[in-house]
């Protein structure tokens, strides 16, 4: 439960946590997004949906329980009031708008709200798993990722060139540098917030996409 303030992953997770509301049903992608619940204030209680077939995902406490695993296949726990169901029902909930928020990583995201996070042709093809349905169906899609690639390349682009996960579905991008929203319909990225100690200039240098600056953004 310890948040290391200097770790970009925790900065991102902590900021994503502030996007969630009490009572939200949330699906968290593998990796960084799973850190989000650690940063929730005690008055915000969310229900985690796990696409392998249940509601009420919780951290593992004690020994693994047979059959109780998260969508990565790792042993986990379950909240009181949790429910198990089959994969069809799991995606009825996801596609049908019963999941309020999905938080996932990205290889690329662009100013039209397009997301690419499931393959690099000829190189890495893990498959889309549940990501396409989640991004298509969840009411609110938050991309949570480090702002640049390991090599310092831009990931927030004018236009994705990797195969898309879904078209025009991303609502928000949270990185260790900034928070953007994407105006649905209007296309176009809006800078909402700079992370603590980050300058507009830094963000501009690391972002290929064009963006407007929200009047509410404190520069």
């Amino acid at each position, binding site marked *: 439960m310890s948040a290391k303030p200097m770790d970009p992953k925790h900065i991102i997770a902590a900021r994503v946590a502030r996007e969630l509301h009490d009572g939200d049903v949330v699906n968290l992608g593998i990796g960084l997004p799973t850190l989000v619940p650690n940063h929730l204030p005690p008055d915000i209680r969310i229900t985690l949906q796990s696409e392998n077939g249940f509601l009420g995902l919780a951290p593992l406490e004690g020994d693994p329980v*047979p*059959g*109780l695993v998260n969508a990565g296949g790792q042993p986990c726990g379950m909240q009181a009031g949790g429910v*198990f169901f*089959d*994969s069809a029902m799991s995606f009825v909930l996801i596609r049908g708008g019963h999941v309020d928020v999905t938080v996932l990583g990205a290889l690329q995201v662009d100013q039209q709200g397009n997301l690419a996070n499931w393959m690099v042709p000829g190189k890495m093809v893990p498959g*889309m*798993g*549940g990501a396409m349905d989640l991004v298509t169906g969840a009411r609110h899609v938050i991309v949570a990722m480090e702002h640049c690639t390991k090599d310092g390349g831009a990931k927030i682009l004018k236009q994705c060139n990797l195969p898309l996960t879904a078209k025009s579905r991303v609502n928000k991008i949270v990185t260790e540098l900034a928070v953007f929203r994407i105006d649905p319909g209007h296309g176009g990225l809006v800078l909402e917030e700079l992370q603590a100690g980050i300058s507009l200039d830094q963000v501009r240098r690391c972002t290929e996409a064009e963006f407007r600056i929200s009047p509410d953004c404190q520069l």
Partner: protein
Amino acid sequence: MDKIIGINEVVQHFKDGMTVLYGGFMGVGTPAGLVKCLLDSGACKLTLVGNDTAFPDTGVGPLIVKKRVGKLVTSHIGTNPETGRQMIAGELEVELVPQGSLAERVRCGGAGLGGVLTPTGVGTIVEEGKTKLCFDGKEYLVERPIRGDIALIKARKADRSGNLVYERAARNFNPLMALAADLVVVEADELVDVGELDPECIVTPGVVVHKIVVTGGL
């Protein structure tokens, strides 16, 4: 009409080139005994349909590693490097399907439906080769049914008539696969008498189950 068989009687049902549906998610809920039996049968050129190929040594992973699979229909292969290697080397045909669409396609196969219209995949390479329909300004892909020659199912408990309950998140694709194959073979941890399972809580009705192998004590 006794559905209970020994594990040795399963092997006769496996044939080269057949389409095998399997339950499980990262191997959890995949019937390990039946997969081993399929492996031992030597059947090859199989078409496998299931959520993922687990890890090299779990779930259906070993079938991939030992090259028994000619075609794979699945949503995720990232945890079994051998699947990706064979795919990129052109040794294995892989059709990647969004997980929710895979669930619906198998459900359609078991439900006598000709397909579903889903928004998932619109505007992506998943569209390729698919019929697209537009209603009220919204586009949908027609995702077509999938059926199998055989379904390999893992249950927590079976009664003698084949009614099944599952174990937590090991349920996943199992109830869908159990409706969509010509022969449905179940590996159950435990066998109970007819009437012992709560009729409100049975997930898979016995009428769709053909054979049951019990791995726990009888």
